[in-house]
């Protein structure tokens, strides 16, 4: 099993997300994350999908996506040609005794404390998913109250880009 990242431009209309996620469900494709947002062009939204599977799964996903009328461009994004980022908001239990330690860890991971209360800290962190996961693992010891991850977004390095056909 390998991890794949797929980038795509889709039409910025209601129902497009349903169409795409519905197709994944129907064909039994398993995806790890799906992020969608508007782009510099009002007609298009951009999606980044991460998935775990074999080459066959990746090829089928891309080919089936290409057939959807709302999908303008879709391709695999190779890890060493792109920058990928994910953001997590994580609320950790923190009292007088543990607060300083958590803040130090947060600092080492270059994350930000965005809210502070007597018994918790809310931390924002951006980075590659592996870094987020390491930090989340670390925070388990202190007690994670809740957390929320955005899923991965990716762009090609250099001048390459996902152009509308």
């Amino acid at each position, binding site marked *: 099993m390998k991890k794949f990242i797929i980038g795509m431009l889709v039409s910025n209309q209601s*129902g497009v997300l*349903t*169409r795409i996620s*519905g*197709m994944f469900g*129907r064909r039994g494709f398993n995806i790890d994350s799906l992020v969608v947002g508007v782009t510099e062009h009002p007609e298009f939204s951009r999606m980044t999908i991460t998935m775990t599977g074999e080459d*066959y799964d990746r*090829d*089928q996903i891309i*080919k*089936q996506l*290409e*057939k*959807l*009328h709302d999908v303008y461009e879709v391709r695999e994004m190779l890890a060493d040609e792109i920058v990928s980022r994910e953001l997590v908001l994580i609320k950790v239990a923190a009292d007088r005794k543990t607060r300083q330690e958590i803040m130090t860890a947060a600092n080492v991971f270059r994350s930000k404390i965005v809210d502070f209360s007597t018994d918790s800290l809310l931390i924002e962190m951006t980075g590659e998913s592996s870094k987020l996961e390491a930090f989340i693992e670390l925070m388990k010891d202190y007690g994670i109250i809740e957390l929320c991850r955005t899923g991965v977004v990716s762009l090609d390095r250099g001048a390459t880009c996902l152009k509308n056909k």
Partner: protein
Amino acid sequence: MTGADIIIETLIEQGTEVVFGYPGGQAINIYDAIYKRADRIKHVLTAHEQGAAHAADGYARASGKVGVVIATSGPGATNLVTGIANAYLDSIPVVAITGNVPCSLIGRDSFQEVDIVGITMPIVKHNYCVKDVTKLADTIREAFKIAKEGRPGPVLIDVPKDVQIADIPFENKPILPEKPDPIVSETDLNAAIEMINASKRPYIYCGGGVVSKDAGKEVEELAELIDAPVGFSMMGLAAIPHSNPRALGMIGMHGKYSAIKIKSKSDLIIALGVRFSDRATGNKNAYMPNAKILHIDIDPAELDKNINSTLGIVGNVKSVIAAINKRLEKTERPYWQNEIENIKALERTIPEHKSDMLTPYKVVDTVAAAAKPTTPIATDVGQHQMWVAQRYPFEGARTLISSGGLGTMGFGLGAAIGACMATNERTVLFTGDGSFGMNLNELATAVSQKLPIVIVLMNNGVLGMVRQWQTMFFNKHYSQTTLERKTDFVKLAEAFGAKGMRANTPSELEECVKKAFASDGPVVIDCYIDKDERVLPMIPPGGTMDDLVVE
């Protein structure tokens, strides 16, 4: 012009001559627009929206044009669902138009409101809910383009009532050009030629894509050039004439012995417009381990989806084969022809089961003798369908109208109505007592339209296909497959205003068929056949050639 008028004007602009459908509250404006244009477009009122959807599908299969169906919101729209799925699985170009509640009422569980766009999303090529009347005409134009181009399929357009009422100017536009066919590289063509030239035992495997792209002539030419036999999936059956001696017949679960056996000896499968469905391939892990596979299809997602090919080419089968043919030199393969002849000879020694009663093959043969090469042959789903697929000598492309991918019992009568209207030819429907029971209400439509449809009912008193599996795999536990109905199909036909006849013996059937083929409107011939007749040969599900059951 109102949105409703625009819908019908755009359909006419797109070349639509016939629409099938059923009115209702949220489609009443559309029906008013039809009323005003009765001289320019024909509407066929069916008994049920499912029948209308199958009719549009049958119309498209027989004519190669886009079939159009109209229904109202809610139950009208949901009644289309099976028909849309059927068209989707067989890649048939259909445009479905549904009315819906006004935009202001959408999402409030209003009377007869369903989210038909959401419901049909997984069974359409694309669908729309048009909430802006200025986009209505262009959406319909785009829907036709999408339905036809590349790998065809159904498209649904949902039109809320306020959009049907809104009034804006309308202008006709030229038909949108279809997406150009994918360009095939010289490298791929040369690789294909090399594979073919290196093959000692090439075998052409022909699917629905060949019918859909009208590529029969090119396939015949290829077979001639490389001295190869041609086998078919059910969807590809009528792609080249049965009278061509290279045509072997159907392969797959209920394929012909020779077609399957010869394929198993081949070292190169040239797969044209097929999707290697499980019914056609059996156990895909043991599929032709020693053969190379050259797969040509317009849909890139079909390459390596079910079966890995040695070489896959994305393209229109018609132009790709034409390009290959141009580069090929005629080659004879006498040793291969020899093997083929031997297998065919062996097949002839398999005794055909004889009976004084009506056997299924006798029914098919009798009808075939009366029909023309151009007669559309519709079927329902079950044993009778397989007997027709195995036995009927299809001569013309688009003469077989049968539900392949979805296997929809109840498809046949609606589809026969559509095919009959598309071709203006006397049309035959082979149906079973189970299937006919599902949608026989469309007899009313066939009568009101005065359609010359010969309905050949293979009446075995059972859900024969399921019963056959129960016989073979479930210790004859005939759970819910014995119909024990008392339906009198002759009286039933007469009650609908059609003709009814009954045949118990071969000679009675001949008599009935003669009369039926001289009648004007629809005729039902109730043919009694034995409930224990089986469809053979059979490769059990997931099996291989080695598991073939012949008798």
